[in-house]
């Protein structure tokens, strides 16, 4: 059982000077109240720094040591900070002191790399040698499982990755879960037996090489054993590389998440740029269409005048045509070409013809003039009608309106791009592009490595089959001199198979136990009566189960939070290592009902619970009422200045 006894701080973040608090030795909850920016997350980081030498900010990003020295103290000349943690574990008292100070000879420190963090560990008042201290520290609280003891409630959604097989975080958390549950004890034994089996097979091969009858098979077996060694080493190397790459991928994903807004802006800018390119193409095509349609545009402008002119010319044409026809008829009657009147069909007497002749203007001049004018009117009329036929102002207006609309759209998008570019600094864009390049590269490398691992595994399987085959032949041929080696191999093989199977059985049992405990906690924590419990998958992901037996496929952030807390509680219950829980922002986005239930259940999750909250999410009166005698102590993070917080016991 790991128990925290006290924590001492010196110029660590907002905690100026030397400050300390003790945690009561009795089981129960200690609450630290602090408003935003007072140092609750810093306090969580103080534990993390003391134990692992790491300080983690929002989004799991490492915080520079340079920024962790209390600013006011630094202004007064301080150049270092220190955290001391007093613990008890397995009956021994420990004091862990970690100090961060500038590297010697680094000059004026300006960044994280200018600092070094050293620690020493005392057990029972005696300082342990460095190597032993590292081993003890790893035994007290391995970093890989620290996430279940020191955690930020706002990061609990990470456990959602356990439900999805396609993330890189999921397998990491699954490994950590198996570690806290103690599975490695069994898997290490299995791996040791595998090594013993491999060695026994090798001895069989060497023994077979010593006999004339079996030498050939012995040689083949030896070659296969050597090949297996090479393949196994390749596999280990590839798996180690893969793990490194997956860790890098997760880190880049975190980094990219932090730069999400920048990425959104970049994506938007690129999308807009693409749209502007498309619009430019459309505009160019529309310009071509307009270019073809603009030849008769001039007549479109004056179309109303053309229409008026056509009307006037038609009227004049009719007038002139009538005058010409009348003159032609009268001439014909006057000259006696016509015997009768074309209108009344009566014969025109000579006196009437003489009268008509007298009325007619002398000569052909006026008729010819009317004829000429009529010709001119018709020529102009033809031209006017031809122009009217080709002038289509409405079509032109539509073409231009369409072009203008597209131009406006393009200008609007271009203006938006300019606005976005004002918000993008050159560095941020380059960094993000670099991150994306790195991410793509890592994804490709991971895919290649996974392929390589698959191929190596196939080769190893082939190698095992071949070895098995040869072993069987050797067993038939070999005489008594190989019996002892064969027995050794058979024993190693049976033991290995036994432990291999036991890992699966134990893992299965652990999953059932975790599922049962998580379900129990979940039902205590949730206010939804229709939820019957949780169902675990192979990766320790937990699905909410409705009382009708069906899974709830989509869940809210609040539900994720409750499920994650249930998992952490269940892991604490089943862990080999029992210890304290220190939680920052334990309530996330949960409502009052859920908060009350969490407060009531927390003391059952671990013997020692430290809550870092602000008073609005957990008013002291409610904490006292809900926890009653299990509330062991209360502390306030009191503001002295923007850069100075004092720990004050209530």
């Amino acid at each position, binding site marked *: 059982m790991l128990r925290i006894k006290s924590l001492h701080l010196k110029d660590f973040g907002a905690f100026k000077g030397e400050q300390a608090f003790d945690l009561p030795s009795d089981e129960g909850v200690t609450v630290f109240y602090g408003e935003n920016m007072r140092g609750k997350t810093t306090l969580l980081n103080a534990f993390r720094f003391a134990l692992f030498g790491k300080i983690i900010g929002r989004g799991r990003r490492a915080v520079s040591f340079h920024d962790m020295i209390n600013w006011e103290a630094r202004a007064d000349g301080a150049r270092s900070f220190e955290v001391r943690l007093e613990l008890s574990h397995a009956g021994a008292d420990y004091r862990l002191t970690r100090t961060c100070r500038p590297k010697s000879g680094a000059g004026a420190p300006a960044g994280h790399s200018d600092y070094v963090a050293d620690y020493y560990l005392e057990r029972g008042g005696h300082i342990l040698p460095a190597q032993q201290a590292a081993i003890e520290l790893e035994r007290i609280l391995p970093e890989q499982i620290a996430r279940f003891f020191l955690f930020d409630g706002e990061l609990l959604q990470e456990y959602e990755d356990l439900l999805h097989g396609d993330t890189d975080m999921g397998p990491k958390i699954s490994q950590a879960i198996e570690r806290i549950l103690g599975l490695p004890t069994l898997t290490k034994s299995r791996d040791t037996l595998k090594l013993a089996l491999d060695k026994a097979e090798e001895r069989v091969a060497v023994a077979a090489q010593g006999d004339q009858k079996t030498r050939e098979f012995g040689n083949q077996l030896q070659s296969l054993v050597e090949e297996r060694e090479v393949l196994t080493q390749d596999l280990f190397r590839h798996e180690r590389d893969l793990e490194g790459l997956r860790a890098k991928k997760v880190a880049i994903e975190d980094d990219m998440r932090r730069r999400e807004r920048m990425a959104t802006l970049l994506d938007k800018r690129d999308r807009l740029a693409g749209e502007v390119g498309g619009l430019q193409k459309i505009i160019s095509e529309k310009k071509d269409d307009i270019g073809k349609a603009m030849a008769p545009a001039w007549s*479109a402008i004056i179309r109303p005048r053309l229409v008026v002119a056509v009307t006037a010319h038609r009227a004049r044409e009719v007038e002139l045509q009538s005058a010409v026809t009348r003159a032609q008829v009268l001439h014909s009657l006057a000259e006696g070409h016509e015997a009768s009147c074309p209108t009344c069909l009566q014969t025109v007497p000579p006196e009437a013809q003489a009268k008509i002749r007298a009325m007619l203007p002398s000569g052909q001049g006026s008729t010819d003039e009317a004829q000429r004018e009529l010709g001119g009117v018709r020529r102009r009329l033809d031209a006017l009608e031809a122009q009217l036929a080709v002038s289509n102002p409405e079509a032109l207006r539509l073409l231009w309106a369409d072009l203008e609309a597209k131009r406006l759209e393009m200008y609007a998008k271009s203006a938006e791009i300019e606005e976005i570019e004002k918000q993008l600094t050159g560095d941020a864009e380059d960094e993000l592009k670099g991150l994306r390049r790195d991410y793509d590269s890592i994804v490709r490398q991971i895919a290649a490595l996974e392929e390589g691992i698959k191929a190596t595994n196939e080769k190893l399987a082939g190698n095992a089959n071949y070895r098995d085959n040869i072993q069987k032949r050797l067993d038939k041929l070999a005489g008594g001199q190989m019996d002892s080696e064969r027995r050794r191999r058979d024993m190693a093989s049976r033991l290995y198979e036994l432990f291999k199977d036991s890992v699966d059985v134990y893992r299965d049992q652990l999953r059932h136990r975790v599922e049962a405990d998580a379900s129990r906690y979940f039902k205590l924590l949730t206010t939804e009566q229709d939820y019957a419990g949780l169902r675990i998958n192979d990766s320790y992901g937990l699905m909410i189960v409705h009382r009708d037996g069906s899974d709830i496929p989509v869940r809210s952030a609040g539900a994720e939070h409750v499920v994650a807390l249930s998992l952490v509680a269940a892991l604490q219950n089943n862990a080999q290592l029992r210890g304290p829980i220190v939680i920052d922002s334990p309530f996330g986005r949960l409502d009052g009902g859920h908060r009350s239930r969490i407060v009531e259940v927390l003391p059952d999750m671990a013997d020692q619970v430290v809550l870092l909250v602000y008073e609005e999410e957990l008013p002291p009166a409610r904490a006292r009422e809900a926890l009653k005698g299990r509330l062991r102590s209360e502390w306030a993070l009191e503001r002295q200045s923007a850069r100075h917080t004092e720990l004050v016991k209530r």
Partner: protein
Amino acid sequence: MAAEKTTDKKTIGVTSGNERILASLAAEGLFSTDIEAAKFAMAHAIDMDVKRGTTDGAGTKWNVGSFDSDGALKAVVEALYPEEGQPYRLVEHLINEGLKLFDKGSALPPDVAGTLFATKSA
């Protein structure tokens, strides 16, 4: 000079001041040729009720044969201005006046779309 003005013109031109506007109008109006742009300027002047007249100082830019190969423009001008005896001289005048109307200074291009949208419907 007076005798010259009694016969119609065989060529049509624009004043040097209007050359820039014609080029700008041809580009802005997406016209295939500057003849189309010139006709557009002429029509704008007609639409804006520019009075008849003549333009001095217009150089020789086009022969009337190439400017109005089928004589349709001449016929239209004669129809719209029945009292006009020298239609090509009037065409030249209207082109130059129309170009002046489009002149918004070198900073602003001629408003071709606006001219089309402002046209009264028949």
